[in-house]
């Protein structure tokens, strides 16, 4: 694995918003994450890819503490994640997540899905939250569906709602956990378009995805994981143009030959 200096990666030397140090995680006896070290700067777009079971989802789920870890440390925007519920909620209020299966709340209308966290976690008034939610729905192109329920929408629309919901709390960091993997092929583009728009606006994004086109287009850094480890990370140009490890080459051959 090649260690690039910040300068080579075109990064500043300060301002890491996520810092993962020597992270180890086990499921029972299974060593899911092995000695992960990762720094993400404010505004960076990171894409993580790798074969299934490589630990990439587990890694980003550790960042908002949906998964507990046994060793190492994760610091998000200056707050170190421990068992302390207050700190966990502090981190979660700054980090939003978009899931593979959307996980919208089926008993709430679209607009109420969006305003739930702003009202209850961020103490916004109903009116404020509603206005912001409508703006965001407009941005992802489904303002006219605001009063409908999640199950009345197509998969692509649901995922766009999920992105709007994640943005509704004005997070500093967006985590995407395979946001297009559960979608029909013709709906992937509409979700990726929204993500690309978002990337251009300078929010910090960490995306687990197999959409290599997306990675090439917007990523600052692409990370390849296998068997719970980071195998290689590089700028998209070098990552795709000149992969160093044999495993990454094999992986890229497999997914790009389709």
């Amino acid at each position, binding site marked *: 694995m090649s260690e690039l200096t910040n300068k080579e990666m075109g990064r500043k030397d300060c301002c890491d918003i996520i810092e993962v140090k020597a992270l180890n995680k086990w499921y029972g006896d299974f060593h899911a994450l092995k000695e992960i070290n990762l720094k993400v700067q404010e505004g960076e777009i990171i894409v993580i890819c790798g074969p299934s079971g490589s630990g990439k989802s587990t890694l980003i789920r550790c960042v*908002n503490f*949906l998964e507990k870890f046994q060793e190492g440390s994760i610091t998000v925007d200056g707050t170190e994640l421990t068992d302390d519920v207050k700190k966990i*909620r502090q981190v*979660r*209020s700054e*980090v*939003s*997540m978009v*899931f593979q*299966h959307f*996980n*919208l*709340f*089926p*008993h709430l209308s679209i607009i109420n899905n969006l305003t*739930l*966290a702003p009202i*209850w*976690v961020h103490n916004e008034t109903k009116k404020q939250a509603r206005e912001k939610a409508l703006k965001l729905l407009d941005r992802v192109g489904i303002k006219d569906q605001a009063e409908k*329920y*999640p*199950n*009345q929408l197509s998969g692509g629309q649901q995922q766009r709602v999920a992105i709007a*919901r994640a943005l509704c*709390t004005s997070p500093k960091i967006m985590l995407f956990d395979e946001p297009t993997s559960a979608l029909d092929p013709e709906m992937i583009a509409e979700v990726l378009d929204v993500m690309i728009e978002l990337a251009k606006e300078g929010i910090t994004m960490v995306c687990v995805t197999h959409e290599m086109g997306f990675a090439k287009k917007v990523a600052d850094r692409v990370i390849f994981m296998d068997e719970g480890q980071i195998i290689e990370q590089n700028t998209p140009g070098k990552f795709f143009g000149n992969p160093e490890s044999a495993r990454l080459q094999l992986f890229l051959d497999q997914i790009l030959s389709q």
Partner: protein
Amino acid sequence: MAIYPLKETKQPPKSQTKAVLWLKDNLFSSISNAALTFIALYVIYLLLPPILNWIIFDANFDLTADNQSCGRDGMCWAFINANLKMFIYGFYPQEELWRVNTMFGLIAALIVFGSLIKKSQYRVHYIIGSFLIYPVVAFVLLYGGLGLEIVETDKWGGLTLTVVVATIGIVASFPLGILLALGRQSEMRVVKFISVIYIEFVRGVPLITILFMASVVLPLFFSAGMDFDKLLRAVIGITLFQTAYIAEVIRGGLQAIPKGQYEAADAAGLSFVQKTMLVILPQALKISIPNIVGSFIALFKDTTLLLIIGLFDMLAIVGAASSNSNWLGRETEGYVFVAMIIWVILYSMSRYSKRLEVRFSTEHK
């Protein structure tokens, strides 16, 4: 290779009338289905006419008849008429009956008014307020105090007693059941352990045992002077019993909620209480509605067991009324009548549950 033009959409064929089609699809779709249809029709032919004859066609509707003149060919409605007050109020004093009526009238008024302000922003306040204030008012009306003459609970009976016990059991066991179900799902081992023990213990014991414990065994633990009300003991027993069942029903609903819902709520930064109240419980309760109502229906029927510990619910009143020397041998009339009333109440509950399901369904609109 070929290209196929798009086809026009057409109406389905209309060869047969709807009624014929329905018969064919539902009653005579195969030989075995047709055979079952005929057997069922025959059974209905055997059972229904005698029942209808007894209740209506051969019945004596002369409400002034006495036991002799009423005859034995059909139902004697005069017996029902003469004992109606007892069926409804038990042995509640005649001159105080208005208090029971007011209690029933109030609850009807509360429900009607509640359905009128469905859209109002104060609806939740109204419901919570009703739940807090009404029980106190109802208690004062039924038991007395504040200037009203005290009517001891051993005078309560009939439909009044049934409804009072069932309502208290339902209203009290619902929140307790939710807490217990959450307790059983809890990650806190002690809470979970206590919940499991409680649920499994209560579910492993017949209700009748709990009622006996409450009415016979419990007083042994208290000193002679501290004799608290028999009805109260029974209500507590029934509530504790029902709580365990409701908890299990709600646990079923909780387990049906996908893990993703918990994760989405967590990721949004909701606290445990917020997550439970805003995301998990609304969905779990919605799924559980049919089973919750089923459980309440069972509770309503179980109140007839109060007879065993000497409380006169509606069913027990039949025995009392037909052992009156004026009306000897009219148990059948009483039991049929009570069955009809209970059926009407329970069927309404079941229809109401259907309506709730439709109202809360956002899954497949």
